[in-house]
């Protein structure tokens, strides 16, 4: 088992892009001191949902993007780590667990399908999935991370099972040994194979298909389950999470323990020697560039990928430069090679879906199964397609449109 290095960070942030479709009410102002676990933002439409500060310190930057959406809310670490401690009753029922999750901000780590948004506290899921498998390249092994705090994981899973009255599936690889979870509702689902076998989208497709929106499963990552267990045991969420840091710019993959939303500069500090690098929060397949105001660890990311920056991108065919009389835009088309079938999410016809996304045909995309998908499910299509389109962004546009129509209909 690799050594896990504890890393102190100087800055951490909440990133708007981790919560697609959410409008925030900011509860603090720049310069305010905040405690770890103190609510700093609120969902405008569902004010029960609170977003809490990952560290204790001072709010330094609130950066806003288009239509004044929150890009990131950054907190600089203070002199001493002080955390809000919540009262946890000895015997928790479903409502009090829900309430505890909302107050501690751990509710915001839940995701629902369709749309991949934070579920509404008043809704009931049709199934609940705990993702304890990660098939992304250079990702940490969930077994090792859970083995650090097995009781917290069991506790968290039991609490989740108590909160919802539907089957709770723990999705894992057959090689992973997990601590026992004492609950009749918990079932184990095993998934084998290369990526995307570890994506919640694949698990949901097998266990509780979303279809045309009639089912609404929820899912949560294994580290967030640990954090919930920690919360129930101690009254405060886990202060740190384990991330792996790896990629072509590093000799070996390292395991680090850092706070939620930690600044990537702090994370890669002392780990990477190369100067010319590009840092990605998440994996190569579906991570985000960690740049500027978004240079922080994403909420659902368990890894940091570091790439060397190459100045000569892909060696172009030499003959081309010979023919290149006038520089013009090179817009490559979608070429439906059979590669795409392997990169496609299960049960989805890749090329018709990609064409529907490219032309923005919301209705057709929905019929072909867009409601089952989020950005990470279609990330591989963009890698394989010669057009290099960001299908995730197109899918998000389609999903927001569908969500808008759905809420208008209700």
């Amino acid at each position, binding site marked *: 088992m690799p050594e896990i290095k504890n890393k102190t960070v100087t800055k951490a942030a909440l990133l708007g892009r981790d919560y697609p479709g959410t409008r925030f009410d900011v509860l603090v102002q720049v310069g305010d001191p905040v405690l770890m676990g103190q609510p700093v933002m609120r969902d405008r439409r569902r004010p029960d949902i609170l977003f809490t500060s990952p560290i204790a310190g001072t709010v330094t930057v609130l950066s806003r993007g288009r239509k004044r959406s929150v890009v990131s809310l950054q907190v600089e670490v203070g002199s001493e780590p002080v955390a809000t401690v919540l009262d946890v009753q000895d015997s928790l029922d479903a409502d009090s667990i829900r309430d505890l999750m909302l107050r501690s901000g751990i509710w915001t780590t839940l995701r629902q399908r369709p749309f991949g948004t934070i579920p509404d506290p008043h809704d009931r899921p049709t199934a609940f999935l705990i993702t304890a498998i990660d098939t992304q390249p250079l990702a940490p092994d969930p077994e090792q991370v859970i083995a650090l705090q097995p009781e917290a994981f069991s506790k968290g899973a039991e609490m989740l099972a108590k909160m919802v009255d539907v089957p709770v599936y723990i999705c894992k690889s057959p090689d992973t040994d997990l601590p026992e979870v004492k609950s009749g509702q918990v079932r184990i689902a095993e998934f084998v194979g290369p990526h995307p076998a570890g994506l919640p989208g694949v698990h949901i497709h097998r266990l509780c298909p979303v279809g045309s929106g*009639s089912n609404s499963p929820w899912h949560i990552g294994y580290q967030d389950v640990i954090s919930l267990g920690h919360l129930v045991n101690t009254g405060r969420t886990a202060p740190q999470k384990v991330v792996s840091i790896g990629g072509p710019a590093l000799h070996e993959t390292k395991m680090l323990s850092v706070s939620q939303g930690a600044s990537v500069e702090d994370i890669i500090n002392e780990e990477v020697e190369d100067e010319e690098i590009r840092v990605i929060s998440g994996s190569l397949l579906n991570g985000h560039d960690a740049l500027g105001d978004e240079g922080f660890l994403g909420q659902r990311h368990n890894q940091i990928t570091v790439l060397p920056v190459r100045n000569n991108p892909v060696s172009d065919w030499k003959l081309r430069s010979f023919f290149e009389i006038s520089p013009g835009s090179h817009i*490559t088309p979608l070429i439906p090679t059979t590669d795409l079938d392997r990169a496609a999410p299960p049960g989805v*016809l890749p090329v018709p879906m990609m064409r529907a996304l490219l032309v923005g045909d919301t209705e057709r995309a929905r019929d072909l199964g867009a409601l089952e998908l989020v950005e990470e499910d279609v990330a591989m299509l963009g890698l394989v397609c010669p057009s290099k389109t960001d299908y995730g962004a197109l899918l998000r546009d389609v999903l927001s449109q569908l969500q808008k129509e759905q809420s208008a209909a209700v």
Partner: protein
Amino acid sequence: MYSTNGILFKLNHIDRIQRLRLLAIVPVFIVAVLNTGYQYLVSRALNNTTGTGDWRSRMIENFVGEGLEPDIFTALAAGLVHVFPVLMAALLTAGIWERVFAAGRGRQFDSGFIYLAVLFTFFMHPSVSLFHVVFGMSFGMVFARGIFGGEGRSFLSPVLVGVAVVQISFPAALTDHPIWNNIAGYSGTTSLMTYHQEGLSGLTWSGIEWWDAFVGITPGLMGTTSVAAAILGGAILVFARVASLRLVVGHIIGLVMASIVFNTVTGGIMDLPWYWHLVLGSFAFGVIFLATDPSSSCVTNSGRWTQGIIAGGLIVLLRVVNPSHPDGVIPVLLLVSMLSPLIDHIVIWFNIRQRALRHGG
């Protein structure tokens, strides 16, 4: 190139696809040059046609002298004399149109036309008039590529359209050429006609064994005779996941099934067994290099099976019931290519319906 958001790699660059295609065509190219030269020497000796006034013959005589020894170097020279001018004419025509459209649209020059010109060359008769090459290639490049916006945006293969237009426009051309009188003009093969008239003994009499047809040392269009070379190239395309194996296998299944059905009806060419259908004419070459063009074939897996089986069956149908198209590959591939969006449409409809049924609306 690493971009700034979302997409991180250029894993499957379009250049990779184009390079693989050119690599796949290399074995066919070698066989095409050698076999065309060899067939020229054989036909010339057979028909005793020295000094017919054909410019290609004069060129060969200039190179290697009057008395042509049937060795590999003479065959190579004779092959190059036939393939090279046609290839150059096709390349120049295609390149010019590509350039014109690139300039007109303010796009970068796309080197994909090279592959198209090579394929087009292989579908030409050895003694084709260069005017026909320019005409066919232009038609294909303009009406099946340029006006749609180039690579991957047209619904038909420019090669297929170009060859079809030449076949349709000059049906009688070159059918009674003094040297190449064993090839039925642009449609390519007299083997099927021979079989039609004289049965399997007719083929044996003309010196065509099954293995000859498989390796490709039979008279025919310049590059389409060799099944072996086509399979080699096809293996590259399928392995690199540019071409669909389902589509290729579908064509074979369709062809086998249809020929077995026709075999139950005796008489003339209907007797031709499936293993001869596979190696005669331009079936193998057409299927591997034209039918699998990803942009002009079905995009769903069920669609690919369907398209393949329909096309394979239609090729046999056209071969046995329509003597004016002894080969039948080009018109069938063109027809089925046009059909592929409809097939996909049905597959998508089923997929949507299935999803709705599975989840109860």
